[in-house]
């Protein structure tokens, strides 16, 4: 099954290798991996989607924590989350064949971000199945897809939940022992169910 982990890591050379190497060592295939800055200076945020047995989540999380540069790991699969992926799709299209693509883009709530005499570029954001849906519809309608670039999934938990790192910063002054206790109410009580 697919597992999704959100990891906050120190922004240092080699940290990505350490994380990727761990999955390799556990013989777990990474389906997608996105890395970018987080809300805090010097801390990167990774979303890692991996294919592994249903019981592997605990071991992967525990093993990630053994890496010295890892600040926090969240196995988010069990929680309500917003998942997004961004894709750029370049399609061959002339002025004569453009119009039906504009319609499709409208239906999928995507955008045209580049228009050239013989091609156009679509930007689409959403869950992976939505992106795959657009690609499929384009192919079925006979359009030639020239290039696809996808970011891989980014995930954020719904509701008031925040990372323990941020939690600790927000309530600075509170004894550390209390910060390290998991915030139970935030995880169970205040999950809002916004439409996606």
């Amino acid at each position, binding site marked *: 099954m697919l597992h999704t982990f959100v990891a906050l890591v120190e922004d240092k*050379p*080699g940290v990505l*290798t*350490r994380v990727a*190497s761990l999955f390799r*060592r556990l013989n777990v295939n990474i389906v997608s991996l996105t890395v970018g800055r987080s809300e805090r200076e010097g801390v990167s945020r990774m979303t890692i989607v991996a294919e592994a047995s249903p*019981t592997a989540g*605990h*071991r992967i*999380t*525990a*093993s990630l*924590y*053994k*890496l*010295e540069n890892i600040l*926090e790991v969240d196995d988010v699969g069990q929680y309500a989350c917003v998942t997004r992926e961004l894709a750029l799709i370049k399609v061959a299209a002339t002025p004569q064949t453009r119009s039906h693509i504009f319609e499709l883009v409208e239906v999928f709530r995507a955008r045209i971000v580049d228009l050239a005499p013989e091609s156009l570029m679509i930007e689409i954001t959403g869950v992976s199945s939505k992106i795959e849906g657009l690609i499929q519809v384009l192919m079925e309608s006979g359009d030639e897809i020239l290039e696809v670039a996808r970011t891989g999934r980014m995930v954020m938990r719904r509701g008031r939940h925040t990372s*323990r790192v941020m939690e600790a910063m927000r309530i600075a002054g509170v004894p550390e022992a209390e910060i*390290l206790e998991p915030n139970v109410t935030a995880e169970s009580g205040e999950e809002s169910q916004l439409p996606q």
Partner: protein
Amino acid sequence: MSSTPQNTRLTGSEIVWATLVGEGVTDVFGYPGGAILPVYDAMRKFPVRHILTRHEQGATHMADGYARASGKVGVAMATSGPGATNMVTGLATAMMDSVPIVCITGQVSSKVLGTDAFQEVDITGITLPITKHNYLVTRAEDIAPALREAFLVAKSGRPGPVLVDITKDAQQATAEFNFEAAAPKPYRPHPMRGHSADSISDAAKLIREAKRPVILAGHGIIQSGAFEQVRTLAERAQIPVASTLLGLGAFPASHELSLGMMGMHGEAWVNNAIQNADLLVACGMRFDDRVTGTLATYAPNAKKVHIEIDPAEINKNVKVDVALVGDLRQILEILLPQIPTCKSSPWVREINEMKGECAVRDIRNLPDNGHLYAAHVINDLWNATGGKAIIVTDVGQHQMWEAQYYKHDEPRTLVTSGGLGTMGFALPAAIGAKVACPDKEVWVIAGDGGIQMTACELSTIAQENLDLNIAIINNGFLGMVRQWQEFFYEKNYASSPILSPDFVKLADAHGIAGATVTKRSEVLPAVKSAREKKGPFLINFHVEKEDSVYPMIPQGKALHEMIRRPDNPLIETAEDA
């Protein structure tokens, strides 16, 4: 530290030594070379003993043996390129057995990093999966913080090896040195560690209600210093104790509740006790495949309590009922008040009856037939040394016989490569153990195969005139390989017969005294002369060629499906007479 004033401007090389001295390091094992020469040049200004090894692998095993024997962090040093890659096996050995060592390697200048410069190798990349953590340091001012953090990481939590790779220009540049200011942040405990009052009382309840409990004693008891607590638990609740290979010495072998080593070459009563148990209390061990046999049939009727510092080990191999994740000693301190005293246990008597049944098969109970068996040698060595020596074993048959016949009553008296099973470990590791514990008697027990993998370190022993003794269990075979070939490959002894030099002559060439032993009657006199001789002594024991380690659980079999020791081993080997 007092000897270096605060905020002194030092070269990176001086910072290396000043930081090591500040961390309490007194001994370093290493081998100089181009990219580490500035550090070697600065060494004379600092109160550190440097032991020149003959190979960098030896340096890592020495640091490892030093750490295992003393509980301190061992330090090894090497140059870039081949010096660094030679450390790989030693790092992996320390990683598998959770031994705290810090390896310092020189690296080419930061300006030429990544250009395939002479003796450049990406050692931080190579050692990524076999170190707990590693650092590439390219600036003099980063040396002290990196080294100090390396020591903290190596010994904190579940210990392990750390490598610090320092570029030559960082060694040559200068920086302000302030030992205190370079202190690392407090070690971040693994966030998934933890045990609630509920889980502790669940464990206590299982222990109170168990009728047939067994404690599984692992390396973690030694690492955490929980000997007293484990002993109190065993005595108070009358729980027999089985040990892993690395757990030997964590619980006194002469104790009436001690069962001995479990697993692939554990005695029949140990493994049968585990298979028939209704509760296993696993203390600082990780249910390695050599311990469990096939998992499907492992201790089928037992509840399992796992006390372990590494959360990644929980439910990895064996699904447990209660997991207490954290420092073993602290957890047992909380648990013990909830354990009532129990007078005697029919379960212990039942196991003792099993022991009696096995004694008739024991090779030590047979009359001397003129053959020399490794078991005799080790048993006699145990008697002669009063069980007090630090024994450093290599890997193979002799290692298992040692585990069966040398009774370790104290922690840190057995140094052996368990997880990785590194042949060639014993001789260098014993050098480390002797340097760490100069007042202790140290014996190497190695096979004729393994000793040759690192025999170059005999020269190190001679140069340092170390008073340690070497027992070679010489059977002319790679013994464990031969045994597997006998049992599982129809006696096709492919490449397992091994020709060795005359080890006594080899020792003599190094100026090391030695003796050859071929009969049982010669064992004790030879051991006596080795013990009396100041300085190193080597004994070449020519033992039975095709002897096997029993019992043995074939791979993929359950613990109770062991190949038992033959009733009379003399019949097995009579044709050699």
